[in-house]
Each structure stands twice: as C-alpha cells, then as structure tokens.
C-alpha cells in the first residue's frame, strides 16, 4: 500500500471518528464532518444528475435530432421561473406534470399490489382441523381487526372497538417483529465500520514500525 493510499484512508478514518464523536456530544469535529458531508453530497448529486440525466437524456437525444425532447427541456426551464417573484407561477405546469405522472403511475400499481394482491393472498381456506388451517383463521381475523382500526366512520366503541383494539395489538406485534428484525442489519453496518478502522490501524502500524 502506497503512502497516498495511506493518507487518503487516514482522511477517511479521521472522518469516521469525527462522526462517532457525536455519540459523546455535539462538537467541532462532528460539525465539520456534518457540513462536509452535506456539501460534498450536494455536489455529488449535481454530478450524478448532470452525467446520468441531463447529458444522456436531454443533450444527446437533442443532438441526435430527437427534437421532441425540447418539451422536457422547456418544462425543466420553467422551474427556474421560481427565481423570480413575478414569474414564479410559470413553474406550476411543471409541477402539475411531475405530480400528475407520479399520481398516475401510483394509482394502478398501488391498487394492484397493495390492495388486490393482498386481498387475494388473504383468501385462504380455513378450518380447525389442522395447524395450517388454524393459522389461516388467525391471519384472516388479524387482518380484519387491523383493518377495523383504520375505520374513520365509526367510533372505536363496543364490539367494533374491541376488534380495533385487537387490531392495534396485531400492529404492535408486527412493529415489535420489524424492530427485532432490524437490529441485526444495523449491527452489521457498525461491524463493517469496525473492520474498516481495524484494517486501517493495522496498516498504519505496519507502515510506521
């Protein structure tokens, strides 16, 4: 490993430690790292959009004679009308375009995947003769009650209230499970950082002595 690499990794290790110093309390090192990551990442995204969206999707098609790409160009430029107090309403058509496309794409997909598909998957054969069938009964009851919790037309009172309460219990068990499942992934992230620091200090040790 060359000296340059060692220095660069040293910079990285320093930044890693600066972020961890936040765990003790807010301090100048953390402030430095925080402002640096905001600045660098903003610049990074400018670049990604320039090289992956602006150039290949607008400039190159226009150069290739696909003049209809002028439409998104204009829609994009209209956004810059926001810089002027007087003309900023010009940016609204663009806003309409972006929000409209988002909503239009979302509607059928949400219905398909989050409603119909889930409904289909819940229509399970039920019974009390075998464990899988009992499990299906449980799933259906839990889905019912959790859905009842999301009813806005009725106060959570009486039998309906009891169902909604069982629904919220189901949700709580689900949330607990989600939390428990995640601990592992987060620990893995820290483990990777620990390995990075360990390797760096081993290298530094090797280079110095």
């Amino acid at each position, binding site marked *: 490993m060359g000296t340059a690499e060692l220095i660069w990794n040293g910079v990285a290790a320093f930044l890693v430690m600066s972020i961890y110093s936040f765990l003790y309390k807010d301090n100048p090192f953390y402030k430095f790292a925080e*402002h640096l990551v905001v600045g660098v990442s903003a610049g990074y995204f400018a670049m*990604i959009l320039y090289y992956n969206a602006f150039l290949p999707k607008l400039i190159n098609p226009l150069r290739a004679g696909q003049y209809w790409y002028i439409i998104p160009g204009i829609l994009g430029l209209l956004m810059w009308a926001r810089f002027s107090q007087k003309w900023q309403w010009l940016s609204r058509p663009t806003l309409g375009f972006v929000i409209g496309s988002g*909503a239009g794409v979302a509607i059928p997909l949400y219905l398909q995947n989050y409603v119909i598909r889930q409904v289909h998957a819940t229509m399970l054969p039920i019974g009390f003769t075998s464990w899988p069938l009992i499990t299906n009964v449980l799933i259906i009851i839990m889905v019912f009650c959790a*859905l009842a919790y999301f009813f806005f037309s009725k106060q959570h009172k009486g039998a309906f209230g009891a169902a909604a309460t069982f629904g919220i219990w189901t949700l709580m*068990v689900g949330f607990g499970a989600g939390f428990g499942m995640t601990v592992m992934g987060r620990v893995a992230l820290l483990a990777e950082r620990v390995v990075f620091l360990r390797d760096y200090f081993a290298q530094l040790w090797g280079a110095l002595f």
Partner: protein
Amino acid sequence: MRREIPIAICFLVGISFILEYFIPHEDVLSIFETIRQWAIIVIAFAYVLGIANLVRINSHVIQRKGRDWPYKIILVVSLFFMITVGIIFDIFGIRLGGIGEGTIFGWVYFHAQYPLQATMFSLLAFFIASAAFRAFRIRTFQASLLAVTAILVMIGRVPVGESLWADFPDFIEWIMNVPQLAGKRAIMIGAALGAISTALKVLTGLERTYLGGE
C-alpha cells in the same frame, strides 16, 4: 388560468399513465417510456433550485457571521469543489476531471463521502440500542406486546437464540408470517386506499393546495 392549466396538465398526464397500465400495445409503451424519461430530466433541472437554495441560505449566514459560519464556508466550498472537479474540469479537459474511479471526484467519493455516509448509517446500531432500552418497558399491555415480540425476534434471529431453543427460528418465521404479515397487510391495504384517494383528488384538481396561493 394560472391554476387551471397546471391542473389540466396534471389530470391529463395522470389519466394517461393510468390508461397506460391497461394498454399493452408496444407503441404506447415506448411513448410512455419516453415520458417517464422526461420526468427525470425535469427533476434534473429542479436540482439547480436546490443548489441555489443551499448557497443562498448558507451565504446569508456567512455574510451575517451567524452561528457556525466558518462551517458554512466548508459546506459551500466543498459543494463547489465537487462541481468544479466533476463538471468544469471535464468540460475543459483538465486531467483528473470528470467522475468515475481515478478522478479527483472518485477519490473524494471513496475517501470522504462514502465513509461519512456509511458511518452516519452505522450510528443506527447505537440508536437502535438506546431506543430499545428506553422504550421497551413493560408499562401497558400494548407496550409489552411490542417489547416482548421485539426481544423474541431479536434473540431468535441470532445463533445464540437457536442454541437456547432449537425451534426458535421456526417460531420467528411464524411470527413474521402470521401476526407480522397480517398487520402489515392491513396497513398496506388501508394506506394504499388512502394514497389512491389522495392521488385521485390531486389528479381531479379537488385537492390543489400543492400549487400554492394565487
């Protein structure tokens, strides 16, 4: 007019995307592919607004010598540094310009941005522990359900859980596949209905607050 045209555009674009879902014709698919690309272009243009906002607010602080102003200088300088080495250098053909491995941009990415990002992310290992310590108290029945399931799943997922009870992983699978799945399904169904009705209100112009005042 200043509201009607945007709403009309929103409606037309939205409805055509809904229709596209039902039309398998390849010509239609390719037209809509192009329109989807347009959205990416438009978003790229809007990025300039973001940069302008960032620079404006931070330079205000620097000018007024507001709180933490030296740090704001670091922020603005690092922003322009990245843009300079990434785009300006590349346009003028200066060595090590552009993006990718082996450029200045690449070095900064791998030795500053990536470690910073990954370290920020890994802070969650600490936070998840402190949140668990604080919140998982057996206070109410609901809180206990939350806490007990979390603890069971947590322990059941690691090898040590299995050595405590051989069927632990199966039990965890059951929790994931029955109560967890049922709760999630209900949330999914409800949230999707809510999202669709909100989207429908937006498309039809019934909900137009996003356009702002006159």
